[in-house]
């Protein structure tokens, strides 16, 4: 079995589901012959033709609207936003129509669509190519927000997203698109949505993260282990709705929680997790919850970019602050 990158796993999942289900359609800017700006749809046009791999005009708002209309007719559109920073014109249709249609019609219409977008910084690109807007979508009732952190999870979670009867915003951490390869069997097996993945067991501190920062967080856990500190690492994976049960169970064991995300700090997902822990796990905590996040600034250009993104050192420093409490 061949080892593949995260972006190849994305392509593999779409191809699998397009073979299995004729109602699955890929649409977006340059997704056809060109194979997408990051090559996520490479080869799909050759396999499935122009009708199922649909090149649209340069027109984000209506790409989202098209997907909504197609979904109303029982198709399963996978729309691509070329970059995270180009997703904002799509939000009107995602929020006002895709997210609300099931509730508005009490289930008589629903919207089985996926909006895929690369997300996050770290590729030395301008701000519109480096954003982490997951919290904006997570705030919206009716949406699912999913961010994979490995090739295998990208494959399994994207299959689950396409099969889900409700709209899913699927953010792909572009910094790790080609960071490493792993074996991903093309067996059509979806992973569950709405649950976290515990990537490393530990008993001193719980580290919660997602997407590209799973890598730095696991590295931090490794370095902490060398010092005798046992960190549990949780990959959130589904950002909305959050699997708080797994996080609370872990905190019951560790008494400490550090949340790591690259999006800006204020009203980020870390704030929601901290609030939930304050509400429901107050007496399990021995230390204040720590957040290691991006800063409340637009993501800076490449010379300062790595200063903005949470680093292994910042994660370890935050863990050390929690360890000061006994």
């Amino acid at each position: 079995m061949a080892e593949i990158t995260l972006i190849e796993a994305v392509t593999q999942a779409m191809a699998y589901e397009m073979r299995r289900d004729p109602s699955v359609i890929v649409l977006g800017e340059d997704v056809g012959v060109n194979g997408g700006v990051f090559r996520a749809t490479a080869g799909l046009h050759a396999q499935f033709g122009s009708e199922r791999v649909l090149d649209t005009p340069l027109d984000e708002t209506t790409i989202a609207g098209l997907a909504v209309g197609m979904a109303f007719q029982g198709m399963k559109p996978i729309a691509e936003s070329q970059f995270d920073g180009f997703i904002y014109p799509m939000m009107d249709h995602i929020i006002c129509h895709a997210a609300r249609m099931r509730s508005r019609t009490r289930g008589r219409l629903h919207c089985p669509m996926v909006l895929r977008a690369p997300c996050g910084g770290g590729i030395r690109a301008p701000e519109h190519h480096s954003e982490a807007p997951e919290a904006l979508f997570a705030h919206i009732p009716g949406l699912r927000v999913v961010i994979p952190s490995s090739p295998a999870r990208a494959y399994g979670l994207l299959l689950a997203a396409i099969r889900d009867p409700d709209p899913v915003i699927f953010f792909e951490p572009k910094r790790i698109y080609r960071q490493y390869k792993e074996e991903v069997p093309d067996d059509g097996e979806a992973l569950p949505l709405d649950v976290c993945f515990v990537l490393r067991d530990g008993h001193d501190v719980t580290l919660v993260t997602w997407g590209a920062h799973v890598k730095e967080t696991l590295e931090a856990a490794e370095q902490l282990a060398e010092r005798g500190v046992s960190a549990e690492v949780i990959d959130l994976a589904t950002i909305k709705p959050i699997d708080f049960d797994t996080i609370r169970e872990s905190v019951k064991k560790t008494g400490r929680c550090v949340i790591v995300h690259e999006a800006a700090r204020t009203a980020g997902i870390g704030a929601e997790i901290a609030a939930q822990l304050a509400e429901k796990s107050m007496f399990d905590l021995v230390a204040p919850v720590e957040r290691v996040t991006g800063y409340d600034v637009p993501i800076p250009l490449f010379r300062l970019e790595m200063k903005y993104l949470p680093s292994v050192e910042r994660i370890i420093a935050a863990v050390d602050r929690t360890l000061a409490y006994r």
Partner: protein
Amino acid sequence: MKSWLDVAADVRRSVTLKKSRRSIYTRAGAWHDAPSIGQEAASVGSIATLRPEDLIIHHHRGHAIHTIAKGANLTTMMAEFLGKEPGYCRGRGGSMHIADIPGGNLGATGVVGGGIPTAVGIALALQMRRSDRILLSYFGDGATNEGEFHESLNMASTWKLPVVFLCDNNQYGMSMNVSKVMNIAHISERAASYGIPGQSVDGNDVLAVYEAVLAADERARSGQGPSLIDLMSYRWRGHSKSDRNLYRTPQEIDEWKHKCPIRRFKQVLVDGGVMTRDEVEDIDQAAKTAIDRAAEEALTFPEPSPENMEAEVYAP
């Protein structure tokens, strides 16, 4: 061309629309109401061209005019307006977002122009499925200044989708007269940008609307692509019930009331010997009775329950 008798049946629907705008909202405590009195011929004349399996997607002022014209059950419709559990959307859509899915009414939207891209997506799905159904996409004059209007007509014309774009032009985007916000005489001129036919029609003449839309339907159904039809009419009432009509004169409103599309069509029927004056007035009375009965019944229906408020946000 539709026979006189077929069209005569439509007068019942037009009258019913008008009667539906009584004081029901105030009585039931519903806040919002975007009235459409005076614009009945545009919806009745256009929807009359459809086959039963064809689809519509409409706008915030279409809750009654398009919903009734597409054949809604009046009681279920009234129940939805009043937010009652037996309504078309179990009281969660309301007047602004009523949809009758089995009836081919895929819903209204409260976002001006917001339904147009959805309509293009639906039409794209119909084309991909090799369906011979078509879709009428309704929006107001204000929506044609939104970017989505242009994006959507560009896509639909490029791909020759089975959709007809119908502008319910009532001449005002809330308080703004259409002549002050576009540098062209007729909205239909915009069709030239997309290489599709554009036509401005007297939207108060139900037969003229019918003829124009039927031709556009045939074009859409035969794979030649969309058309843009500007159905020029007028809204007698304010944008909503809070509107004090500060932006237009009572004389202007009166002039348009004299162009009432329903009275005009009744006269055509009587003059043409299709119906007697008494028969026409009987329809009027029957419509009033039907609406009253639907409203009274809907008022007795159960309220939605807060216990299941979180249900149906996601699939169960």
